[in-house]
């Protein structure tokens, strides 16, 4: 792989092939933990409520009466075909959870990412450029606090202020019942569906519900972005090319914009890609805070009823998403920056 610098297609192929062992390991870990360790998921889940015979029936239906090895390969097959198994409590295929609730999670995640970029990039650049000044200190404290305060605390504070005290925004949910009733589900992403329907009230209603969750999750990410951008601006300001640019008499604004900022962005893109894991964790908590009908909220519901199969399926799904996204980011990076390929 190291000989001759390596070509781009070859790099992409190796990265893509790496998805297989990574997913395989994660699936195995989750399977071992959740299927083997607790003994019998059916009695753990519905043991108190169903008769012995009914439990056996449920076990047979889920294939849990077979040997663990068979179950394991069966589950691997489920993952390869992207089905991820089905829940014990309500026999719902995991892929249906993705279809029904994925849109809400996606809407939340994309919104939060935009909020984080809008806050993080400028503040991080300013903090890096004016290192150790008052602006730097204030921005860094802001960064530390966004990182220090759990997302659900931000959520609670927002609810207290905007829903409780001021009464401007609805405290939980994705939309009013009337909106959910009126808007026909086309893409399963409510905002887009509302736009397609051309329903002004619905769009406004969704946006109102969207503000607090998106701001909450966005704040969490923005702290990370600030830190990353700041450190990388600091690093790139040390470069000889910055000194050279200044020596040529290029204005400071231009130096920052064209020389420092752009070079600082390359490592930032890499690390931001790795924040998908954080974004997912944050989304689970944000959804639980705002009763947002996304995949994370479903996960919490199934945790509460101790549905092992559902927890296993959703966690595996998240793991696959993280691995695939991080490898796609690697490839994008290789396309942008030739130094990455080696």
């Amino acid at each position, binding site marked *: 792989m190291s000989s001759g610098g390596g070509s781009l297609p070859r790099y992409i192929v190796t990265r893509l092939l790496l998805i297989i062992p990574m997913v395989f390991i994660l699936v195995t870990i989750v399977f071992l933990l959740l299927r083997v360790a607790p003994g019998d998921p059916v009695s753990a889940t519905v043991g108190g409520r169903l008769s012995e015979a009914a439990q056996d029936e449920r076990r047979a239906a889920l294939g849990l009466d077979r040997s663990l090895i068979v179950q394991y390969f069966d589950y691997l097959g489920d993952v390869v075909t992207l089905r991820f198994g089905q829940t014990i409590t309500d026999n719902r295929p995991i892929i249906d959870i993705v279809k029904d609730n994925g849109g809400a999670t996606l809407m939340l995640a994309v919104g939060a990412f935009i909020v984080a970029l809008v806050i993080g990039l400028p503040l991080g650049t300013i903090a890096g450029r004016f290192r150790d000044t008052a602006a730097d200190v204030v921005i860094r404290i802001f960064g530390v606090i966004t990182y220090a305060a759990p997302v659900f605390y931000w959520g609670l504070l927002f609810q207290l202020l905007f829903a409780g005290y001021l009464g401007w925004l609805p405290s939980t949910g994705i939309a009013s019942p009337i909106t959910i009733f009126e808007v026909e589900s086309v893409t399963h992403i409510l905002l887009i569906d509302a736009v397609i329907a051309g329903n002004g009230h619905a769009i406004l209603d969704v946006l109102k519900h969207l503000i607090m969750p998106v701001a909450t999750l966005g704040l969490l990410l923005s702290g990370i972005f600030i830190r990353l951008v700041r450190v990388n601006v600091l690093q790139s300001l040390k470069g000889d090319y910055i000194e050279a640019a200044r020596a040529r008499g290029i204005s400071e604004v231009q130096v920052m914009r064209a020389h420092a900022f752009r070079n600082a962005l390359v490592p930032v893109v890499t690390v931001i890609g790795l924040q998908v894991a954080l974004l997912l964790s944050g989304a689970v908590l944000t959804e639980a805070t705002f009763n947002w009908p996304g995949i994370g909220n479903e996960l919490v519901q199934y945790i509460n009823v101790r549905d092992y199969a559902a927890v296993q399926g959703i*966690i595996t799904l998240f793991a696959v998403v993280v691995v695939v996204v991080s490898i796609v980011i690697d490839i994008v990076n290789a396309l942008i920056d030739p130094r990455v390929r080696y």
Partner: protein
Amino acid sequence: MGIARTLISPFRQTSGLARWILLSGLLLLLAFVILAVFAPWIAPYGFAQVRESGEMFPRNGPPSGEHFLGTTEGFYDVWSRIVWGARTALQVVIISVFLSVLLGAPLGLVSGYLGGWLDRILVLIMDALYAFPSLLLAIVFSFLLTDLFGGGVTAAAVALTVIYVPQYFRVVRNTTVSAREATYVEAARAIGAPKRTIMAKYLFNNVVQSVPVIGTLNAADAIGTLAALGFLGLGIQPGEAAEWGYDLQRALPGASAGIWWTGVFPGLAIVLLVTGLTLVGEGLNETVNPTLRKRKLRPFTLPPRGAAAVQAGKGQVDL
């Protein structure tokens, strides 16, 4: 004496801001350590106490004389829960950071030094665990542990340990790999030192340098994750110990009804403790890490030209 000086010397060389960060972090941390250690004396009530001399505490009572931060919807005293919560948080964090260093660092050392198949497999597993969203990993483990052993502080600490092992493993392994071929290790090999001695004596001391910084930052992260588990109803249950995340979850439904004291204060405790730990970690990092360190510029006077060149400390340069 010598050790104390080595520890303090980088601290003395830091510029104002890094030192300020480190100090304020230590101060915040100290406050919580005091709360945790002296909880039985500081907290006016027990963490699960709901009545005193036969009389129930008010439900969702606003801050008052008897309950100066109010009471929760579960009749608990908010201030007492915060004080006892500090004890829980520090217990869990100390256990989990200690366990993960104990597991991760030696594994990384052995894996990095021996190399081969063991190394490859361990790296693959650890990378997979590291890539996994840490909260989800903690969810899986505490889901399991609460079912297997019941909940409690230990279960929560073990669930958190799993998240942090890969970090120590990675750092220690990578440093070991680069230190393995260093001259002093080669010299040790040349005089016939066995592998165990090389790892325990020569490599260990050079490799553990970065552990304190990661440890503090992990501790900060662990506080947040513990609270998150509690918030999702997975962590420590209210009868077992006071836990801030659980309190926040219980406070949430009251938020839009204007009951602010049940949520604002426990959350503030999390923020302050995490901030303290983060500041200590950042301060340590800027102090220890030479690439980030900005040394304080000390005035240096050249000895006067010609005679009496030894009288350095005194006068101006006379040109």
